[in-house]
């Protein structure tokens, strides 16, 4: 079982050395830049690690999918291989990803200040609800599970029509839930920063929610409550 890591960075240059401190340079870690600076380039080239540049559009689903396609084209991934996604400013302050049940498909990493833990316990969770705990700032997914989503989502893991901040992960969470995946909220890996509460600082968050609802209804996967 191999680990393939994808870090999407939007000018978060200062965090690159910290990721390399955690994982090392020989760790199948890939940086996806959508606002690459000279300093970014210098750091990844001097470290000899792969990187991908995309248009500076801030499209996080696209950036993550781009990273995934890179590994698919450059590594012979098997179904039990693990894809890990990190946002460019989420450094693992604790990294013990293996302390989980064997049946996991998705691991939702927790954060230092994690409001999900006010409602949920560490362990198996359901994401087939409208407000689900699937946050994409840091999570792991078996490649076999990724391919299941491909079948539900037109060949992509993340829906790239989510161009505003947020909700692309909630949407993925609903799909994972409907696919019957085993999803664990996992504290074996703890990331820096917080989860929850910052959505209100995004002025167009309502539009993201609207798009989220629209996509759920279009795909007929709205998690109705009976």
């Amino acid at each position, binding site marked *: 079982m191999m680990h393939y890591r994808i870090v999407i960075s939007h*000018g*978060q240059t200062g965090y690159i050395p910290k990721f390399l401190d955690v994982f090392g340079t020989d760790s199948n870690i890939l940086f996806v830049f959508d606002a690459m600076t000279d300093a970014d380039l210098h750091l990844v080239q001097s470290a000899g690690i792969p990187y991908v540049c995309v248009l500076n559009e801030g499209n996080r689903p696209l950036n993550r999918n781009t990273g995934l396609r890179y590994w698919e084209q450059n590594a012979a991934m098997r179904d039990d291989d693990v894809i890990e996604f990190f946002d460019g400013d989420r450094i693992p302050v604790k990294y013990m990803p293996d302390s989980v049940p064997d049946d996991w498909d998705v691991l939702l990493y927790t954060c230092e200040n994690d*409001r999900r833990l*006010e409602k949920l316990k560490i362990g198996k969770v359901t994401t087939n609800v409208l*407000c689900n705990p699937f946050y994409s700032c840091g999570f792991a997914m078996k490649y076999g599970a990724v391919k299941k989503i491909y079948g539900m989502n037109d060949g992509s893991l993340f829906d790239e029509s989510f161009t505003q901040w947020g909700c692309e992960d909630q949407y993925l969470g609903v799909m994972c839930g409907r696919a019957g995946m085993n999803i664990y909220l996992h504290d074996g890996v703890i990331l820096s920063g917080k989860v929850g509460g910052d959505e*209100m600082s995004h002025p167009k968050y*309502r539009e993201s*929610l609207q798009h*989220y609802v629209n996509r759920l209804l279009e795909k007929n996967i709205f998690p109705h*409550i009976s």
Partner: protein
Amino acid sequence: MNKITLTARGREILSQNTLQGGEAYWVGYFGLAYVPDQGRFSDEQTRLINDDEHGDYIYNLWQGDLVNEGHSIASDNLRKLTMYDRNLTSNFRYMYDDEKDCNRLVTWTTKDDSESGSSSYVREGYHIYNGITQGESNNTGDTDTESELPCPAPLFYAGGSASYGTAPENPADFMNTVSADWPKCKVNGDDCPMVTPDMRAYPGTWAGATSTGWNWVPQNAGKYDTLPSYITRKTAAGEDGAESLDQYAKFLSVSNFNKEHGHVSAEGYNVGYQESCHNMSMVTRLFPIASYELTATSEPSTNDPNRSERGSAKSIKYVIRMDLKSAYQGVRAYLDTLTYQKSDTEGVEPEDIALYTSKKPNSFKFNRIGIYAVPVTIRHFYKEGDAANRKDCRATHYQMEISPDAKPELFAVMQVDEVCMSEDGSFGLSDYNTTFVLNLENVSDNTSLCTNPEVYYNLAENEAITWYQNQLIATAGLSEAVTNLGVNMAHMMNNRPNASCGECSFSDSTSTVDVPSYGVFTETYDGLVPKSSEAGDTDKFLKGDGTWAVPVVSPSMPIIIRDVDLPLYDEGKRYAPNYSRARLTILKSDGFHVINQDGQESLFDNVTWDYSKRGPSYEHFSFGGANQLVWYTWGALYDEDKTPNVINNNNRTLYLDTTTLLPGVVYEIAIKICAIGSDMINMITTGNNGFGIYFYNDLDGSGNECLENWYKWADVSAESPVYYALYPNFELYVEPTDGSTHRPLYDGNNSPGSGRTEPVLASATIHFVKVDGKVYVMSY
């Protein structure tokens, strides 16, 4: 032969703009760039800013004298300073670097004469201008911006280099075409030059040199929007023109643009306003086109004397004029060889160390000129004395304004045959004048235009274009520093309908302080006069027939409701109404709208109305076609000594009629508690009482909601709890500290008594959607 070609974006602009409609653009800027030929093109040469080793390679610095004595508030010196046509060659220069084979922007430091005790301007040593860096955070968490040189001061360009009152030098004169009553800007009693520095609060910029060089530290960012006290603001008639000038400053100010777009930290990503690095090096890089004329135009499309004539143009002739003559007699000649004095040992005479040998002491070097277009908005205004005639609309005038947020777009590129650079003499390029004619015919036919390979000849096309555009983009921050409202850019102007009676429903966007901000109304249209609270029913508007009615919002319209402001003063006295209030504004992408009772839509500016709730016996709030509500409600008021006192607000609940919610629409309600007293804090944070949203029809109680920000209020005695309402768990609230029982929290830099403030003490936002008859709360 010089060539000019439209960019792809230029073609789009032309193709999208006709006399029948489209967005209006003004083509009025140009920028310079130098594109080396293929043999010299390298990655190294693409470095523009913040390059410690090489400095700026090409940098259009039209700031004038920022190092020398000219940077002073004395009026006579002011005119030697920051005027792009003077003193430019005094202190900044592109020097050819043999070693790097490129030009570098350098300037000189002053020298403190220890014997005489005075400073002189002997140019010993140099600075490579490296742009601006972000300094360390201070003890309040703010981050200063530092530069070894004073940050380039934004410019107001007003059409010419002469002071106000002088005959305009070219048709692009701003002051005399917009309004005869446009306020003068004075410094120490003298008129400001038509090209002036941004004289708002940048006190650090004239703090002078320190022993370690120049250090510029911006003061309170909030002052960027105000004018310093030494500027007297008068209209031509001697009346107070403060507000007009403030408006002028706002939409002309590059720093206003920068405020929105320059939030770049040292690591390159966007940060909050207070923490941001206001990178002034990104502004003030575009220059006004001296004049231009339309050739072979059609007849003007209107005879309305109040509007600019317009027609369709077949070509535009641009005149570019750069006058770099230095009028300052104290300018010294430069040496061809630059040295600085170095001494490592005390008592030993300094040694002259050669830094550069200047082959060509270039002030500027360019072989490309970029022509920029910027979108403009047609505004309507009334001249003085017109207010009494508003109802019949006869006095409506037009003007075009550049949006402060609009960024110039590269419209066309001129290729200059010869690389233009300064002369070999000591004063560099004295002037540069040229004329280009841009053919607008057959713009959709690519074959009629110079193609990029022709323009960029031997260069790898993509690299050259990208490199060139990056240069120009890096210099393209000055969207509002230069403006021209009276130019006949016929082909590119949106053809707006004439403001005849019955069609005029525009509010006054340029009203002065003594004119209330409301628009005209007719028998058909709702006006913009909200019914006063004394008259009751404050959610209604006055119609032209004298009756009051509630504006009807079409459900089919995607409408955003946004708050504008909240009146905290009544005759200079702060007060809080004893009822909850929501102030609503309908905002669409192109402005403010309202739908009348007949379903007809009208465009308004700053339309607002109040929605009030006075108790459960009143009607429930209906969103109509809107989907956002910012609900201000009150918990306390301030005394004159700024102490908040609790008042009894019995109307803290917003009642929603969920039967009117549109299925699948995500609604947002933001509750903002204003001026709340400390003894109410506990009440609102526990959620046991106080402010809430009551869902009139139903509320999904399945536990599907994520309610970290909210509490549900339910009757838990029942077998199945009945959920009544949601109460916000406010995250932002006032905590009494340091023995003070009241410590208000303010947005921005406002404080009690400073003006119109919104002391929002607590806020929470909730989202919900109705699907299949159920309301799902979506706040996470």
